Structure formats: structure tokens, C-alpha cells
């Protein structure tokens, strides 16, 4: 629905064709993953076709809906296939990250590697100047420096700038977010006003290539398709002081902060504090022990120019639903950074993105590599 309205708004502002007769706005869907590829995940036999796998990217229904909107708006529409790149740059790292005891967010990876990389390249190749998406975020060009700034969407409840922290200056220069100034309610109202065929379509929630929302089953199915080990490697569940409390069925079944599903009962509630891939251990402890202040961030992308060794005050967001908290960020070498929160934060999770904000502006961000004591 969001991308449809974005297309509608663009088309309204660019109703006339270019001087050579080419259309100014073109609809495009990225085919990223073949939902029929892992039929076992859908409870299907090899060769059977799902009747309906909706609400996610790349399902036939979504392509159908997008095509319907393009027809409605009178735009040419194409599906471009990035399945190879998506698997290589998003799916495989996603699985590897889980196996290494992290909790990855593939959407950020996809934005950086596919949507605003490969997709922009294709757009330029076919003669486009820029790519527009339905993200709730804003791009501003600073006239003095010529640099681009990334701002949170106007609607704080829908802001998606967290997932966009990896965008480079070159990518931002080619990017339009027509919905950045609007709230979700306004967007839905505008979609209804225009009778867009998808005005009532619910938002997609799950990770797009995990059709059931069950990422553990996805990882198993994917690994077995790749001819790799099907059974997860089990290991010990230990307390923070090193006592063995039980056994687990594989690190990918756990995420920091998780309480349920530990497989044994104790007097006090226990939480996953960390995952130790070297020892194959799940470390558990009290809620209090989940609170940490310092973390290391890798592969940092600075949208605002920040030099090595520089230290800045920022609000740092450590997961999508986290309220950015005041912290000090120190830019290290090799695109690393260290963050120290003013007060401890709960369940800082390796694999998630840490995004540094100055008010509504994204200064930079990267991936949480390590939580420090």
C-alpha cells in the first residue's frame, strides 16, 4: 500500500511524459525470493503450488496487486529478478548470523545491498534519475555542503529510518521518499481518496522470505536444501557464573532477552543474557543482568561526516521498537564504533542495527557486534 501511494503521488506531480515521449514514472517490483523454493515450509510437496501465500514480498499476490495499481495509475510496470543477489547478500548472511549466535535484521541488509544498490543500478540503466520507495523517512540536501541528510519519517510510530542507516551519500542522492512527510493515517486516507486498489491492504509484518514467520524452520529447510547439516548443534545452557543448568538445541533458537522456551523451570525468572558461539553456550541470568551500557558496532556507515577518533553525543537506537536513548558514540578505526549509554539498556542484541540519531537526523549506524560488561 505504501509504495502504491508513493507511486500515485509521484505520478500526479509528473503527469506529462518526457520530451522524447518516455514515461516519467515507472512501477517496478523486485522479485527477491521464490516462495515455492522451500515447499516443505508451506507444507507442500515438491512441484505443488501454494494457493495463497500473501502479505509478504514476492508472493504472486503482491506482484498481482502491484501490477493492478500500476495499471490503475497508467504506469508501465516491470518485475526485475534479483533472486541470486538476494540469496547471496541477504538470506545466506541471515542464516549464518543466526548460527553465529546473533539475531540479524535482514531488512536493513536488503536496503543497503539490494534495494538501494542493485535496484538503483537497474533504475539508472533503464534511464531513470532516482528510485522512490514507500519508506517513512526523509532525505534532505544540504545546499551549503552538497551533502544529503537522512531524517526520520514525520510519523514517529511508522518511522523506518532505523532500517536505512546503511545508505551512502551516492544512494541518498538517488532516493525519494514521497511518504516521509505523512503519517500512516494520512497515507491510508490518501490511498482511499484515490481509490487505490490496495487501500485496505494490511501492512506486511514478517521477514519477507520467511513465509510462515517461523525463522527456525526456515533456517532448517534452507540448510537442508543446501545439503548442509539439518540438525542444529546443541550445547549447554549456563548461568552467568558458569553453572550448567541444562541443554539447548542450537543457538539459532535463542535471542537475547528471551524468557520462554528455555526448557526448564527455576524459582526466579531467567532470561537469555547472551549467546556464546565459541563455546556453543546459551548464557542465562536475571532480568537485572540483561541491562548493559556498552556495546561495539561494526561496519558503521556515517551519513554525516564523522572522523576517526571523534566522539559525539547522540541518541542511539538498538532495535526497531527501541526508544533512542542518550549515549556517547566514539568513532573508531576500520568502520567500528563504541557506544556507551548514559543509563543501561535492556537486551542489547548482537546482529541488530545500532543507529545514532541527532534529534530526527540519522548521523550513522552499523551492526552490534559485541555487548561489553
Amino acid at each position, binding site marked *: 500500500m505504501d509504495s502504491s501511494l508513493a507511486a500515485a503521488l509521484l505520478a500526479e506531480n509528473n503527469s506529462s511524459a518526457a520530451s522524447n515521449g518516455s514515461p516519467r514514472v515507472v512501477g517496478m517490483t523486485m522479485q527477491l525470493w521464490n516462495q515455492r523454493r522451500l515447499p516443505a515450509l508451506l507444507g507442500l510437496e515438491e512441484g505443488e503450488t501454494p494457493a495463497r501465500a500473501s502479505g509478504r514480498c514476492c508472493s504472486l499476490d503482491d506482484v498481482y496487486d502491484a501490477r493492478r495499481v500500476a495499471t490503475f495509475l497508467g504506469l508501465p510496470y516491470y518485475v526485475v529478478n534479483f533472486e541470486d543477489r538476494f540469496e547471496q547478500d541477504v538470506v545466506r548472511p541471515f542464516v549464518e548470523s543466526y548460527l553465529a549466535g546473533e539475531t540479524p535484521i535482514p531488512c536493513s541488509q536488503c536496503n543497503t545491498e539490494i534495494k538501494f544498490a542493485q535496484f538503483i543500478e537497474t533504475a539508472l*540503466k533503464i534511464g531513470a534519475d532516482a528510485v522512490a520507495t514507500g519508506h517513512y523517512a526523509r532525505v534532505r540536501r544540504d545546499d551549503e555542503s552538497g551533502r544529503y541528510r537522512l531524517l526520520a519519517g514525520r510519523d514517529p510510530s511508522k518511522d523506518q529510518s532505523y532500517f536505512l542507516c546503511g545508505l551512502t551519500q551516492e544512494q541518498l542522492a538517488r532516493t525519494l521518499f514521497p511518504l516521509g512527510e505523512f503519517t500512516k493515517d494520512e497515507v491510508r486516507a490518501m490511498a482511499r481518496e484515490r481509490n487505490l486498489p490496495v487501500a485496505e491492504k494490511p501492512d506486511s509484518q514478517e521477514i519477507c522470505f520467511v513465509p510462515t514467520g517461523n525463522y527456525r524452520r526456515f533456517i532448517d529447510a534452507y540448510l537442508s536444501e543446501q545439503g548442509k547439516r539439518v540438525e542444529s548443534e546443541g550445547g549447554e545452557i549456563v548461568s552467568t557464573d558458569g553453572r550448567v543448568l541444562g541443554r539447548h538445541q542450537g543457538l539459532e533458537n535463542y535471542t537475547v532477552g528471551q524468557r520462554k522456551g528455555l526448557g526448564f523451570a527455576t524459582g526466579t525468572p531467567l532470561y537469555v543474557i547472551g549467546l556464546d558461539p565459541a563455546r556453543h553456550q546459551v548464557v542465562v541470568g536475571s532480568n537485572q543482568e540483561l541491562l548493559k551500557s556498552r556495546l561495539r558496532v561494526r561496519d558503521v556507515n556515517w551519513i554525516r561526516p564523522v572522523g576517526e577518533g571523534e566522539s559525539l553525543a547522540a541518541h542511539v537506537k538498538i532495535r526497531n521498537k527501541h526508544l533512542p536513548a542518550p549515549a556517547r558514540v566514539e568513532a573508531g578505526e576500520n568502520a567500528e564504533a563504541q557506544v556507551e549509554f548514559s543509563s543501561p539498556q535492556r537486551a542489547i542484541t548482537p546482529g541488530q542495527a545500532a543507529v545514532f540519531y541527532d534529534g530526527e537526523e540519522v548521523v550513522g549506524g552499523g551492526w552490534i557486534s559485541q555487548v561489553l560488561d
Partner: protein
Amino acid sequence: MRRIYLDNNATTPVAPEVFEAMKPYFLDDFGNASSIHWYGQRAKAALELSRERVARLLNARPSEIAFTSGGTESDNAALVGIVEASRSEKKHVITTTIEHSAVLHTAKALEKRGVRVTYVPVSASGIVDPSEVEKAIGADTVLISVMHSNNELGTIQPLDEIGRIARERDIYFHTDAVQSAGKVPVDVEKLGVDLLSLSAHKLHGPKGVGALYIRRGTVLRPLLYGGHHERDHRPGTENVPGIVGLGKAAEQAAEHGTNDAERVGALRDRLEEGILKSIPLTSVIGDRSRRVPGTTNISFEYIEGEGFVIAMDLRGIACSTGAACSSGSLEPSHVLTAIGRREQARTSIRFSLGRFNTSEDIDDTLEVLPRVVEQLRSLSPHYKKSAIAV
């Protein structure tokens, strides 16, 4: 924006005369061809006239033509029909690696039912070697199916030789002539085929109708069960307007087939030579001396076919990366893979011309093409690297 259609192997526009011929059969002469009354008789007469016209195009008898819903159904009916009707305990089918999906996927389905299938390889230029077919023949071989011309390359296969082999060994011989019928002479006697598939919309007829030539005496088990239409080969009330369209299209093809072929062939050659001359790092895929007139498959190194087709479309020129049926799939073309050109599967573009293309179409295409190729190449990291290397 002027639009130019260079994708006639995907489908062709219905010829105005064909459209005119079909019209009465929607409104006035709407009868069911099986009915006894006047309405039925009008429809039946039209049906039989079309049968004669299609038969004439193929040098067949009208009674040997069964109408179907198109090329895919004809291919299915031929392969499944022969295999199911065969009383042998063991059944073996020979086909090639470059067939259309309608044959290949039917063969795959037959394999699942226990039929042995041999996929004979083809040469690097996309031509089947008849001796390879002969070598594949076993005591249990019930059918040989080899396409007349390939949809992606346009290469024409040596059917007469294969037909002779099939006849000597007393094996049924089917050909998918969907891309040939109406474009080059297709004579069932000269080719020695027992079964032949064709489709109306590839020769300026309507979509959803085709025919299967079934040599007299050939025993087929039908795909569908129902009434006694089409001599029990194909039940279901006949698609009279569609069949009339096919008949008219076949008549037109028989009338000015040779003229069309010469004119279209000359346009294709001009397009091809223009591209090879003006754009570096291009080459033609497939045997240039044995092709249907309208088709050319050209590899543009360092371009990516998908983006090329979109960029061309936005400038009003329609072409394709290969078979329309495989659009959206990432699998490299099975045809290019089969001729050892897997690497070029992503950089190759099919242009297919037809009766309604003009000299101006080629001029305009040759003007737009170099700019599109340059635009795509300038953004290709691999091209930049190779340019630096050179």
C-alpha cells in the same frame, strides 16, 4: 511515442483480413457446429473450410487436421496421445534439449509415469544431428519429437532426414512447427512427420486456437473426454470464430508466404548487420544459414538482458530475452544452455520480426539501440573494468 514491435515469436498481431473473417461468427453465425439446424450448418461449413485451408498450408488432407486450443495442447496431445495408445510394455521417447517447454515439460511428466526419455543434444549452432537421433533409437522407442524451428534461435532442424530414419524404423515422428508454420514451407510429406503442432497466433491469427496434424492411421489416445468432436481427437464445442481465424491466417500464409519470408528475412538481415557493425562486442547466436526469416538472437556483452528489454520498452521498442513463457525466471535459457552458451544467456536478446514490420522500424531501432547499449554498459562495473584492462 512511436512503438515498434519486434517480438513476433512471442505473438503476432491478428491480420485485419483475419479479424474481418472472424467477426460474423461471434454475432450472426454463432451456431454450434454440431447442431442440425441452419445455424449449426453455417458454423460447420466454416469449420470445414478452415480445415481445408490449414491442410493446404501443410500439404495434408483435411481429415488429418484436428483443432486444439493452441500449440501447447497440440504438443501434449501428440506426446501423451502416442505414449498412452502404445501397447508396448516399455516405452521410450526421443526428443531434443532445445524443445519448447510444451514438449520438454510433457516429456518430464511422462518420465514420472515410467516412460524413458532421451534428450538428444544439439550442436553449438543450435542444430540437431540426425545421426544422434538414430543412435538413441531402441527397440522400445515409440515416438521421436523434434521441433521444426527453435523459438529462441530460429534455427531450422533437419526434419526430412530424421523423418526418413523414423519411417525406416517404423517409429512415430512428431514436430512442433509452431514457429515455422506460415513462415517457411512446411510440407508433412516432405518432412515425413506423423504429427505436427501449430498455433494460430504465431501466424497473425487469434490466440487460443491451434491445430494438430495427425497422419491417417496414427493411433492416439485423447487428452480429454467428452463428445465426438474432431473425429474423437478433441471433444468440446469448437471455438468456431477462432478456428475461422486460424483458417484465414493459414490461407494468407499460403498465399503470400514466400513474399513475406523474403521481405522479413531482408529486414532481419539488415537489423542484424546494422547491430554487428555499429555496436562492439556483439555476436549472433545460432546457425545464420539455417533460420526462419524473422528471428535473430544477439548477444550484447556486458549488458544484462532484463534491463535492456525494459530500457528498450521505455523507448517504444518491444523485444525479449528469450521465450516469453520464461520471463521473470532467473534460470538461464535452456536453449542457450543446451548449445553451450550458458554464459551468454543473460546478455542475449531475441528480435523477431513479422509481416507488419517496415523498413522504418529497422532504421529507428538501429538509431536507438547503440544509445541504450551504451547506457547499460556505462553502468556495468564489469564493462568498466574490462575497458580499463583494454
